């Protein structure tokens, strides 16, 4: 058991290191992606800030929007996943073949690639937030250990859900020509239903109700609202956390099912 754990730790360390080194080669591209990670929530903030200039919107004043969208910026970076596009390419272009010939499922390479990017992004975007907080008090968050601990706890399953939903979507490439189309659809829905465009409370009631039946709020909105203090323990936290675990388990089961079935029909094209 100890040997197996040691092997996996060593594998993860080596994979994360390799991913980090590759990212350094593409630092310009990564910088641009991180820049978009800042720009997207700031565009939403700009719009809501100007709306809130005429008065608070359902309890959200300008400063509340500022804290919310900075939290969205950080949580988005800590949960971002692009594996549907990667896996779609692996399957369609034959780049999965050599990965399947290794004694390790390809998902582990995807996980560590993800981890490396998140660590870099968290440092950069966390630094951006600290810098802005230095001269803009509105975005400052109080240092409350319980709040930060709960937010950290909520981010972990959120990242897992987002990763697995992206990876499982990519597995659709075993069946359809462009799994990326499904991924694009999810991306579009998540802009609204995960709180990236607006806090979920400000959406029309019917949309809010529909969102609660999906995994999207668990991915970004929930951890962001824990971070801003709008959700706290015991209040809404443990219920929301339990829902995250349910969605995480559901996507894990779906990934395992789809992967096993997909491999059986895999045509290994592309050399």
């Amino acid at each position, binding site marked *: 058991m100890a040997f197996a754990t040691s092997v996996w730790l060593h*594998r993860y*360390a*080596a994979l994360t290191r390799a991913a980090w080194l590759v990212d350094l*080669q593409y630092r310009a591209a990564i910088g641009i992606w991180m820049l978009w990670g800042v720009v997207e929530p700031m565009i939403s903030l700009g719009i809501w800030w100007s709306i809130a200039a005429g008065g608070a919107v359902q309890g959200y004043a300008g400063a509340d929007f500022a804290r919310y969208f900075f939290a969205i910026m950080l949580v988005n970076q800590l949960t971002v996943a692009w594996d549907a596009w990667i896996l779609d390419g692996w399957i369609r272009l034959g*780049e999965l*073949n050599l990965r399947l010939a290794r*004694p390790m499922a390809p998902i582990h390479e995807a996980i560590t690639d993800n981890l490396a990017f998140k660590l870099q992004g968290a440092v950069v975007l966390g630094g951006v937030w600290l810098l802005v907080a230095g001269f803009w008090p509105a975005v400052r968050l109080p240092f409350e250990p319980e709040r930060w601990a709960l937010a950290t706890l909520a981010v972990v399953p959120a990242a897992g859900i987002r990763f697995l939903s992206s990876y499982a979507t990519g597995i659709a490439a075993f069946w359809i020509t462009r799994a990326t189309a499904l991924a694009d659809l999810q991306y579009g829905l998540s802009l609204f239903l995960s709180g990236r465009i607006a806090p979920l409370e400000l959406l029309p009631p019917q949309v809010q109700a529909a969102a609660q039946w999906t995994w999207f709020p668990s991915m970004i909105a929930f951890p962001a609202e824990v971070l801003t203090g709008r959700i706290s323990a015991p209040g809404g936290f443990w219920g929301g956390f339990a829902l995250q675990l349910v969605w995480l388990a559901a996507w894990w089961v779906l990934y395992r099912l789809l992967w096993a079935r997909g491999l059986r029909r*895999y045509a*290994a094209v592309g*050399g």
Partner: protein
Amino acid sequence: MAATIVAEGLSKHYRVKAREAGLRGALVALLRPRYREVRAVEEVSFAIERGEIVAFLGPNGAGKTTTIKMLTGLLYPSGGRAEVAGFEPWTGGAAFKQRIALVLGNKQQLIWDLPAEETFLLNRAIYAIPPADYRERLAELVALLDLADLLDKPVRQLSQGERMKCELAAALLHAPEILFLDEPTLGLDVAAQEAIRNFLRAYRERRGATVLLTSHYMADVSALASRVLIINRGRLLYDGALRELVLRTNPGKRIELVLGNGVERRDLEAYGTVCRYQPPNAALVVPREHAADISARLLAALPVVDLSIQDPPIEEVIREVFAEQAEKDTRAIEVGFERDEGAATGRAADIEAGGGGDKVPVGDRPGRSD
């Protein structure tokens, strides 16, 4: 000793969409999709013993790579069974993958933007290679493949031959028992091909590994493999020693000539079958047992500048095997048509006479795939 690679009745069929080219074809395919079955591998059976180097030959689309992908667990077969190193490949899991290596000539596992050594370090972790073993094997591979100057260069800056050498090193660090090499010398220059062949020979001698390789280059086959499997249209046509194949298919010897002035084609025809006449070069095919005697007579009777006796090029031998099979396939289809026509005529006569019914079941028609 149990064979290390066993395939019994291995088959792989694909259902592919059939459509005509153009916009009309695309629309028709959308509304009324048609499918056809492609039998990429059909009932292939063979056994490879530990330590053998076996070449898998066949034209493009013959089923070589598909067979290798089944034997490495990348594909589930449509029928049959296989056993590799004691495992069923598609269910063997990590323990099975630890014992094999797969090298694809047109795909790579090396990390493109990093030096090859980074991929080696990554594989050391993935395959859980103990540090001392890693150092020893890396030193051996660096020496055999002459990699010392390549290890710290980004892979994207290596030539194709250098990349393939690094690719082989990455694949062999975990000392696999069985190597599956799909076109390992594809696109390489002559020197690089020679280096790869020398390495594979040396590696097999040192490690006793079993090698199954596919190649279009006959030089790979003749330099490395004592046994060949020939596959075409998914079916195994030949399994045996290369020498036996040459003797069986083309029992003649080839006399290559460099002629002096004044030798006409008809002058050569008295000695054997002229297969090439491009003065001053020419070539004759003669019965194997008379090759020496005919050579002596040629040298005595004609102005011959140079002469050599050779086996026919392996490419010719393989082409003859395919041509024989194509003829058999064509004949089988013709026989099938003749039987159909005969049956139709018989049925017409039966119907006239008041009988009827289909006297030729579909499944009995030779040469059909349904």
